[in-house]
Each structure stands twice: as structure tokens, then as C-alpha cells.
């Protein structure tokens, strides 16, 4: 349970004890087991700290900047370093407090120091009329901010870091630069944060907000690397590079969907696993697009091109490991969804003509999506972890998409839409009844 649920439970306990619903001993056990984590960074804490730090930093720079021209170069440099010194002194006081420091203090000083370091770099480069690209500045800034996440366990700086590395990776997709100055560095940068090391202990799970930013950052950052892997040499624009990059992104999202989790992590609701939500939506969207014959042809050409890159083999190796672990944990629903990304690979060996025909892939993609929809429903009916409503929705969408692309008459299409709509409503009703019956049995 997250801290807000814990707090709710703790508020209810006295009333439950008074009403005789639970004994004092049971209440005490629950209090100990679900103690509210007041040291955790709530979203409001992070937002307030970020806003405060931003306003203070911007205000200082604006005040100094108003009289900028009046100052000599050494005075300007002094002003560049002064905010950094002040924030470091403030941070020092919080470091001395250690774990006793309040969350808002940790978040505020960490963010202020990160902003002050960035402002110092900017002001120095302005004073000396330094050129250079903004990604170079961003790179220096987020590297100088990363250890603040480690020291202060700062969620706000972690979010800044995740956004910054993704933006940097997307900007570094030009061929020609060495790998350590390109989007290929993104996985290493991500490791720098995860899991708030050094000295990391799994004291509490990451907040939902941070998980979403983490998943979004991974999607864009690894996507940047996929685009870079498929780009030709400078000046060359291979025809299939975009389709290849999109397929590699689909492989990446399939990997995100299957990211290994502990048993407790698997048991959590899907809404608390943004990597699953984002990954599944991307993979299924890609699968839906593959049901169109022309798109299928592009996908096959893209996959064939992508298989010439080392990045795709690395990805496949990593996902292979994830698949083995997912099978061990019996994550069948997610395995079914992730399998969409591998369909072009399975078909490629049978494609002898050039350019490959998209007919086979489009038919198989439609069948596979149909199978996934059914699997998600059947798993739930068999008492395993499935997602019947999502499965039904997938089937409906598939039928709508395929009918929209067909040459059937408007009357036929309308009739089928009507039938599918009624079936969907009936299924929804059936599932609600089934859930109510199940809850009734439990109580």
C-alpha cells in the first residue's frame, strides 16, 4: 500500500476498535505493519519545493541581471558563484541533520543547489560569450546534479535528472559523434540514478509520479538510441531507417512491459506500473497498425534493416532474459502482449521476394491481436491474472479497425458495429455481475 492508503487505514483504526470490529491487539499489529511514512516525498512536497526553489533562483538572477552591465567581469563572476555558495551552505546544514531532516527541506535544498549549479554554468558561459550547443550545457548540468539525488534522496532532482537525460538523448541522435556523446549513453545515465545509489536500500517503493517519469524517460531516451542505431552515416538517409527505428522502439516497449518485478510488484495494480501501461499501449498500437497491408510491408523492411544493427541484437538478448523471468513468474497476459513485437521477426525468414509482401504479416497481426484479446479474457475466467475488459476492448477495436479498412457495404459495416457494440455492453454487464458475485462469496 502507498503512504496515503496507510494514513487512511490508521485514521480508521480507532473507530473500528470502538465499534468492536477489531481487537486492540489486531489494531496495534496493523499500526506497526502499516505505519505512515512521513519521511516520504509526497507530490505536494515536491511541487512546493520545486516552485519555491525556482522562484528564489529566478528572482536572484533577475535582480542581479538588472544591473549586469554596470559590473566588471570579476564582479559578475562573483554573482555567478554566490548563489551556488549560499545553496551549498544550506545543503550542508541539511546533510548534518541526516535522516532527521524534513522532506521539504531535503527537496528544497537539493533542487536549489541543482539550479544554482546550472545558473553558475550559464552565467560563466554568458560572461565569456561561450558558444556551444545547449545539449552540452544540459549534459554538464545533469551530471553535476545527479549526486544530489544520492545525498538527499531528492525526488524532485531525480525527476529533473530523468527528464534532462531523455531530452539530451533525443537531441544526441546525429551520427558522427562518439558513443559517449550520443544517445547510446542513455542506458548508462539511467543506471546512474537507479536505484538512488550508492548505499541504496529498498526502504520504500518509488512513488507513482517518479515511476511515470521514469517510464516516460526510458521510452524517449531508449527511443533516441533506437533512432540513432538506425541512422545512416552523415549525409545518408536510408529509406527504411524510420521504419527500423519504430520497430526497435516497439521492441524496447515490449522489454519495458516485461521488466522483471518482485512478486509484490507484480501484485500491484496496473496503474502503479506505468512501464506496463505505456509499453502495452505502444506495442498494441503498433500491432494494430501492422494489420494494414501497406504498413506491414514497411514494418518488414524496417525489421530487416534493424537486424543489421548491434543495438537490435543487444535489445533482443535483454528481452530474451526478461521473457525467461516472465515465464517463471507466469506473467502470461504481458507475455501475450509483448509477443506482438516479435511477429515481424518470425515472418522475415519466409519472405523471399523484394520488397517483401505485407499480406502475411497483416493477417497474422490481426489473428495475434484477436488471440491476445481472447487470452486476456480467458485468463481471468480461469482465475489467473488477466484483464477481461481490456481484452474485450482490444477485440472491439480490432473489429472496428479491420472493418474500417474493408470494402464491405455501409449497411454491412453498420450492422456489424451494432452487433459488436451490443456484445461489448453485454460482456461488460456479465463481468460486473461476476465481480459482484465473487465479492459476495468472499464476504
Amino acid at each position: 500500500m502507498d503512504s496515503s492508503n496507510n494514513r487512511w487505514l490508521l485514521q480508521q483504526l480507532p473507530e473500528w476498535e470502538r465499534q468492536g470490529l477489531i481487537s486492540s491487539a489486531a489494531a496495534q499489529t496493523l499500526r506497526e505493519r502499516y505505519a505512515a511514512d512521513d519521511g516520504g516525498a509526497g507530490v505536494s512536497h515536491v511541487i512546493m519545493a520545486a516552485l519555491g526553489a525556482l522562484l528564489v533562483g529566478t528572482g536572484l538572477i533577475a535582480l542581479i541581471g538588472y544591473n549586469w552591465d554596470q559590473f566588471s567581469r570579476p564582479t559578475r563572476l562573483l554573482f555567478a558563484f554566490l548563489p551556488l555558495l549560499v545553496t551549498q551552505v544550506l545543503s550542508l546544514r541539511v546533510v548534518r541533520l541526516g535522516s532527521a531532516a524534513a522532506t521539504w527541506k531535503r527537496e528544497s535544498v537539493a533542487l536549489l543547489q541543482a539550479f544554482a549549479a546550472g545558473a553558475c554554468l550559464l552565467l560563466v558561459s554568458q560572461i565569456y560569450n561561450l558558444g556551444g550547443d545547449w545539449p552540452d550545457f544540459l549534459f554538464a548540468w545533469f551530471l553535476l546534479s545527479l549526486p544530489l539525488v544520492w545525498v538527499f534522496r531528492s525526488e524532485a532532482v531525480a525527476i529533473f535528472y530523468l527528464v534532462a537525460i531523455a531530452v539530451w538523448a533525443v537531441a544526441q541522435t546525429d551520427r558522427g559523434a562518439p558513443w559517449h556523446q550520443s544517445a547510446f549513453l542513455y542506458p548508462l545515465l539511467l543506471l546512474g540514478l537507479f536505484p538512488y545509489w550508492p548505499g541504496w536500500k529498498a526502504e520504500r517503493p518509488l512513488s507513482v509520479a517518479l515511476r511515470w517519469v521514469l517510464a516516460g524517460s526510458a521510452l524517449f531516451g531508449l527511443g533516441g538510441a533506437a533512432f540513432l542505431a538506425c541512422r545512416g552515416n552523415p549525409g545518408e538517409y536510408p529509406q527504411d531507417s524510420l521504419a527500423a527505428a519504430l520497430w526497435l522502439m516497439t521492441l524496447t516497449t515490449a522489454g519495458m512491459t516485461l521488466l522483471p518485478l518482485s512478486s509484490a510488484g507484480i501484485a500491484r495494480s496496473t496503474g502503479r506500473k506505468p512501464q506496463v501501461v505505456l509499453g502495452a499501449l505502444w506495442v498494441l498500437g503498433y500491432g494494430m497498425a501492422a494489420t494494414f497491408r501497406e504498413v506491414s510491408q514497411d514494418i518488414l523492411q524496417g525489421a530487416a534493416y534493424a537486424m543489421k544493427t548491434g543495438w537490435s541484437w543487444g535489445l533482443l538478448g535483454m528481452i530474451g532474459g526478461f521473457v525467461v523471468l516472465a515465464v517463471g513468474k507466469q506473467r502470461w497476459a504481458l507475455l501475450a502482449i509483448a509477443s506482438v513485437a516479435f511477429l515481424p521477426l518470425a515472418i522475415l525468414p519466409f519472405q523471399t521476394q523484394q520488397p517483401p509482401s505485407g499480406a502475411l504479416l497483416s493477417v497474422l497481426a490481426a489473428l495475434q491481436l484477436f488471440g491476445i484479446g481472447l487470452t486476456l479474457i480467458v485468463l481471468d475466467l480461469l482465475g489467473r491474472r488477466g484483464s477481461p475488459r481490456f481484452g474485450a476492448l482490444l477485440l472491439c477495436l480490432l473489429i472496428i479497425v479491420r472493418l474500417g479498412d474493408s470494402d464491405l457495404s455501409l449497411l454491412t459495416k453498420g450492422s456489424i458495429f451494432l452487433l459488436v457494440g451490443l456484445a461489448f455492453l453485454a460482456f461488460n454487464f456479465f463481468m460486473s455481475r461476476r465481480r459482484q458475485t465473487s465479492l459476495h462469496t468472499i464476504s
Partner: protein
Amino acid sequence: MKPLPWLVFASIALAQWIAPLLQIWRHERTISHGTLFKFKCSAPDPYDLLRGRYLAVRPVESSAMPPAGAPMGQNAFVELTVGSDGFAKPGNLSITPPTSGDYLDVKIRYAFGDHATIEWPFDRFYLNEKLAPQADQWFAEHIRSDKGIVAEVRVFNGRGVLTDLTYDNKSVLDILKAQSK
């Protein structure tokens, strides 16, 4: 008290000072020891969201002879010579620093055959916000004149620092300040 947080904090606090100080040291050294080169340039007035107003400095001369197999987007070293008009001219490009003469570390923007377009390491001259609108107008009036706008760059060990923009041997900033009085 745990030593690890202290150690990490001390290291990062130090690094946050070293990074800008290193920049300052390099640029001060270039300004004090560097050779002065003058680049004839054009200078429109854009806006940098992160750092405020500046004049974009684009030297007129920006093509050079590339080394064999010079990949685009990579850094190279361009030899600097002075033409009969007194302005700096880019000479040969090489992957390794030349052993003699003045040179700059530049980026190869585009290369085809015996022609390469280079990206100079100085591309902006920062202005006060109050002077910027006036600078816009002043540049529009003077940019195509015979005297042209000149970027004064100090060059040392491959590094270049833009120290001033001049017009008719007078600092552009001084001209603009005098006009605004």
C-alpha cells in the same frame, strides 16, 4: 554519522565549483596569451531562452579543405591565416592539432569532396537586455556597409574566445552605449 553522504556531498560541492572555474581558467588564459584574429561577420539578433539576448556571430569565411574521410559532426582543427585585408581565413582542416601556427578546434558541419563547412566555436556575443532592441536596429543599418562588423577573437591552443565586436575599430558595445545616452 554516516561518512558516505558527507563524502558524496563534498565531492559534488567541489565538482560544482571546479566545472565553471575550469572554464574560467581556460578562457582567461586564452584572453591573456592568445593571438588576436579578426573575423568579418554578419550578426543578426536572436534570443537565447536560457541565457538571454545575444548577437549571433557568423563569420563570412566558414569553408575549409577537409582531411581525407573527415566525418561530419566530428571535431577537427582548422589552421588560421591572415589575409591581405587583415581578416582571419580558415586554412587546412586536420584531425590532429597542427604542430605549429595558430589553430582552432571546430566542428565539421558538412563535408563533400574538397569542401567542408565548419562551425566556429564562438557564435554569440551577449548583450544587455536594454541595449538589444537598439542593437537590432543598428545592425540592420550597418551590417551591409563596406566596413562591416568584425569579431575579435583571441586564439590559444585551439581555443577561441570572442572578446569584442567592432565596427570601424570601435567596440560595438561602446557605440551602442554612446547612442543610448
